[in-house]
């Protein structure tokens, strides 16, 4: 029987349950999914990517996946941050503007071009830019790309983040955070679905 971690909490897995026992067979993965979460949201150094920015990006990314216990969790994390409270509403409005279906985007020009799929190229609304600030505006636009059309990513997107004040190390942590959440939200959803199918 294990102590509940963040995935258990979000997926509603109780100690001693069938899924708890299955997760225990991949103990290193279980412990390190938790360490990934902690190193992203309780880092030893948040100098390149502040805690409020992390919570704002997390609320946005998980919100884009649709309302869920995961989205609610990160929205609360943002609300609980002194610098984040004022961001909850603008982030919520931007989630609604950014919602779509993915993955879409373009493949390298060639035989795969027939599989190209057009979709929303999300940009933060002019109205919200002053509330969010240059760094977060660039971050939300890039996060939307990562969530819905990662195959569209180009070197110019890195330049846009650097130009908005992101350091190279900050870009690495920010990319990890969005990518990690893409993993976490799916594990939680998959485990919830499996638990419901076994009930």
């Amino acid at each position, binding site marked *: 029987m294990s102590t509940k971690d963040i995935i258990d909490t979000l997926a509603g897995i109780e100690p001693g349950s*069938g899924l708890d026992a299955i997760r225990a067979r*991949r103990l290193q993965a279980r412990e390190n999914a938790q360490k990934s979460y902690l190193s992203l949201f309780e880092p030893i150094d948040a100098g390149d990517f502040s805690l409020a920015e992390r919570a704002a990006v997390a609320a946005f990314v998980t919100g884009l996946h649709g309302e869920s216990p995961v989205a609610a969790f990160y929205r609360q994390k943002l609300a609980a941050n002194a610098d984040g409270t004022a961001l909850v509403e603008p982030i919520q409005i931007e989630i609604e503007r950014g919602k779509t279906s993915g993955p879409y985007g373009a493949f390298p020009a060639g035989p795969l071009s027939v599989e190209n799929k057009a979709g929303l190229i999300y940009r933060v609304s002019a109205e919200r830019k002053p509330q969010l600030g240059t760094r977060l505006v660039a971050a939300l636009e890039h996060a939307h790309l990562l969530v819905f059309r990662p195959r569209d990513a180009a070197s110019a997107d890195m330049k846009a983040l650097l130009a908005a004040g992101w350091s*190279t*190390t900050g870009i690495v942590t920010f*990319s990890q955070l969005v*990518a990690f959440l893409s993993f976490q939200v799916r594990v939680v959803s*998959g485990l919830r679905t499996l638990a419901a199918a076994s009930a």
Partner: protein
Amino acid sequence: MSAANTVNPPVVFTQDELGWVSWIDPLPEAELTERHFAGLVDRARAKSEYFRLLVRDPEVLEARTKTDKDIFYNVADGLPRAERELAAAATSRYNGCIYCASVHARFASTYSKRRDDVQRLLDEGVKADLGERWNAVVKASVALAATPIAFGPDNVEELRRAGLDDAEIVDVINGASFFNWANRLMLSLGEPSK
């Protein structure tokens, strides 16, 4: 920064070995400290541009690497390695990560000895007919990769019909979900090169 003019990007999915070139500066090997080596987990990864970039945040990289290794390499029980690799390859094919697909298609071929079927996944895409069991794994991986997530009770039912027990289904969920992490890093921080 790597010289962009040396990149020869592949334009199709392949099982060939590809290189990967970063769009932003990895840490120089000479600047790596013990904290960085702990993040790399395997010291040999200091030779890789990708890992020397991710090691800018060593704690996240270390946790990510150990999560990855257990999901794919811990085969004491659960889903055969070949089918975990199939989930990774299918996810990468669907998201459009040519580099990740190349690595994990090769692994799927090695462990399954079904190289032609793996190649059909790459050539025809995630709708390729690979037989009931592989179709169920591919379909579940694709449903998990969609945003909003489309994985539902039908996927669980199909996997069960194909003979997977709940522990094996969790391996599919973990393997496919993990590649939604990996694909986004590989696709957005640099590009593959032939």
